């Protein structure tokens, strides 16, 4: 799911036009990037309403800080990602208490299948089906925010290690190890959840001798 990113020069030119008061340019910036920001927020929070509110906040802050972007003048996508991520982390901290109370409710209505966890098949069948997407989103939301953000940026937003490191202001080595830990944790969560309860599309023989 790679996202076509406008060349950096085009972004710079657009921002320059915005700063001269060109409304059309600003609208174009919003159109070009709102999908990316919205999806980042949606996958991080797992809630469409939160994603909408946060995206709105991101663009408001972007609008007020366009001049600062021009001064710093790095890659626009990296800069926008950093801004979005900071708001997401703020939101995560703010809503920590809400989540604690929600967790009890969720447990009651949780549609997670019985955790067999014995694992016969691999997780290859995950790509298919709406239900599988639900599981993946839930597993994603159970990752710690540090792991969640890098996994989303790498696998959903298709950013390379270097850009992620720049956006999060982290050393590249840290980003690499977090991505690895995040993916392994996701695999562990999904395997514990799905186990053998969802039939594998692939030939089960290929996953013989599994000892989780």
């Amino acid at each position, binding site marked *: *799911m790679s*996202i076509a990113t406008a060349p950096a020069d085009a972004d710079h030119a657009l921002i320059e036009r*915005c*700063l*001269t*008061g060109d409304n059309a340019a*600003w*609208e174009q910036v*919003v*159109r070009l990037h*709102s*999908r990316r920001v*919205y*999806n980042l927020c*949606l*996958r991080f929070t797992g809630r*469409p309403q939160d994603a*909408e509110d946060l*995206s*709105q906040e991101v*663009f*408001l802050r972007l*609008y*007020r800080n*366009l*001049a600062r972007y021009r001064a710093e003048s790095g890659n626009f996508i990296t800069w926008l990602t950093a801004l979005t991520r900071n708001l997401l982390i703020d939101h995560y901290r703010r809503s920590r208490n809400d989540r604690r109370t929600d967790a009890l409710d969720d447990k009651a209505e949780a549609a997670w299948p019985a955790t067999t966890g014995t694992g016969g098949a*691999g*997780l*290859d069948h*995950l*790509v298919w089906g709406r239900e*599988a*997407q639900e599981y*993946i*989103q839930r597993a*994603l939301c159970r990752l710690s925010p540090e792991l969640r953000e890098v*996994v*989303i940026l*790498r*696998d*959903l937003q*298709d950013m390379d*290690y270097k850009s992620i490191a720049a956006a999060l202001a982290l050393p590249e080595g840290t980003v*690499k*190890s977090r*991505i*690895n830990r995040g*993916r*392994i944790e*996701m*695999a562990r969560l*999904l*395997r514990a959840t799905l186990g053998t309860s969802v039939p594998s599309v692939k030939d089960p023989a290929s*996953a013989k*001798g*599994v*000892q*989780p």
Partner: protein
Amino acid sequence: MSTTLTCWECEAQLSEYRDGTLAAPSAASVRAHLQACAACGVLAADLNAVSAALGALPQMEPPPRLLAAILVQTAAPLGVPGSAGAARPYPAYPAWSWAGMRAVLFAPRFTLGVAMSVFAVALTINAAQLDLSHVSVADFTPASLAGSVLRQASRVWARGVSYYNDLRVVYEIEAALHQLRQNAPSPPRSEGAPPPAPRTTV
């Protein structure tokens, strides 16, 4: 030439192996380990599946109202100092232009401020019992102003003194009554046998 890895070393490089960012010798080491170790092989397959599944999650289209809401909130002019999007309701005007004055005068914040000031002044005048209906220009000479201020001050002082006196009378009466009540029941009691212990009445 590939070196033999422990499972732990292999696990730490699985993502880079998948993403193709490992140097050729390291990649060969990981490949060799995965072929030899069933547990790591399964983990690698799971990790690849997770990564692929995440990549296959559909990109959601933001609701159209999001775009509209963003554009509405950022409708204020940009690039003019003093205006930063929706945070400031006043558009920036050149200093002391008529348009700028009008914008300020008709702003709800300003109007409310004026109304509150008038209310506060009226309240003060009312509390000080000033009569404004007989004010003339002659009252604003320094002498008459000083005179009226003095008059007001002495009136306030006199009122304070009489209030204090009233209070004092009330307290005196109350104290006298209290004393009477204390003294009234004591004679019959003191007639009996000498009290074992002196009673402290105060």
